[in-house]
C-alpha cells in the first residue's frame, strides 16, 4: 500500500491523495508524461483509456476516451494550464463530445499534480482534485463506473441518530 494520506473536504469539494513510490521522480513523471504509460493506469481494466492527443505543455491539450465492455466510449479532455517537468502539472478539464470538443453542458474540474523526492529513490506524488459541484463529481465518476446516487432524508436521520463522535 503506497497511499500515505487522503484528505477530503466536503465543503470545498476537494480531494487530495498522497502516495509514495520506490522509484525516482523521473519515473513517476513518466507515468503522466508518456501517454502509453498514462493509459495503462488511468482507466480501470473494465474501461481502458486511450489517449488520442497528449500535448503536455502549457496551453496544450490532452484528449482521451475510455471503452466499456458494451462498446460505450465516454470521452474526456484536459487543458494543460501549467507544467513544470518533472514536478508539477495543473490540468483543467472535463467531459468531451465524441469529436473531442468540450461538452459545454458539463462542469469543469481541476487536477493539480505535485511530484517530489522524499529520499534517494523514493518519490511522493500528491494529486489534488477540485470540483465545482457534486454534479461534476457524479459525472466524472460515471465514466467507468455505474455509481452516483443521492441520499434520502431517512438516511440523514439515521446518521443524526448515531450519537456521533465525542472527542
Amino acid at each position, binding site marked *: 500500500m503506497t497511499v500515505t494520506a487522503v*484528505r*477530503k473536504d466536503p*465543503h470545498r469539494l476537494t*480531494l487530495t491523495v498522497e502516495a509514495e513510490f520506490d522509484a525516482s521522480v523521473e519515473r513517476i513523471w513518466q507515468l503522466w508524461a508518456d501517454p502509453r504509460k498514462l493509459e495503462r493506469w488511468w482507466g480501470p481494466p473494465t474501461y481502458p483509456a486511450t489517449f488520442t492527443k497528449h500535448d503536455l505543455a502549457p496551453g496544450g491539450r490532452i484528449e482521451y476516451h475510455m471503452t466499456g465492455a458494451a462498446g460505450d466510449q465516454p470521452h474526456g479532455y484536459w487543458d494543460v494550464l501549467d507544467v513544470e517537468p518533472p514536478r508539477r502539472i495543473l490540468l483543467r478539464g472535463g467531459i468531451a463530445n465524441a469529436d473531442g470538443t468540450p461538452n459545454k453542458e458539463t462542469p469543469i474540474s481541476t487536477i493539480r499534480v505535485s511530484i517530489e523526492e522524499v529520499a534517494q529513490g523514493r518519490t511522493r506524488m500528491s494529486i489534488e482534485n477540485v470540483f465545482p459541484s457534486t454534479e461534476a*463529481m457524479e459525472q466524472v*465518476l460515471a465514466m467507468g463506473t455505474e455509481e452516483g446516487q443521492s441520499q434520502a432524508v431517512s438516511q440523514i436521520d439515521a446518521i*443524526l441518530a448515531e450519537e456521533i463522535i465525542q472527542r
Partner: protein
Amino acid sequence: MQIAPADFDPLFAALADHTRRDIVRRAISAEEGVLELANHYPMSFAAVQKHVAVLERAGLITKQRIGRRRVVRTNLEALLVARRLLDQYEELWRARIDRMNELIAESDGAIDTVETKGSKR
C-alpha cells in the same frame, strides 16, 4: 497508512453536541428562524446563536430568506452526498495508484532482466 479523519472535524465537531444535533433535526423542515429555535432550549438566545454559527461554519445549515423572515435550513444532505462522492473518488485514485505501482514494478523487472540476464543471451 493514515486516512485523515481530521478533515471531517468541522462536520463531526459540529454534530458532537446534543443541542446542535437537535437544531439540525429541527431545521430540516426549514420553518424557524434563530429566535424561534432559541425558544426550544433552556439557554440564552446568544448561546443558541453561537450553536447556529458553529453549524453554519460547518456547512450543515444555511440561513435562508423566506419573505420577510430568515429561516434556518439544514444542508446536511448536500454534505453527505459530497462526502460519499469524495469517498468514491478516493477509491478511484487508490485503484489508479495500485496500477501505477504495477507499472513501476513491471519496468523494474524489465531493468533487472536487462541487467542480470542480458549477459546470458
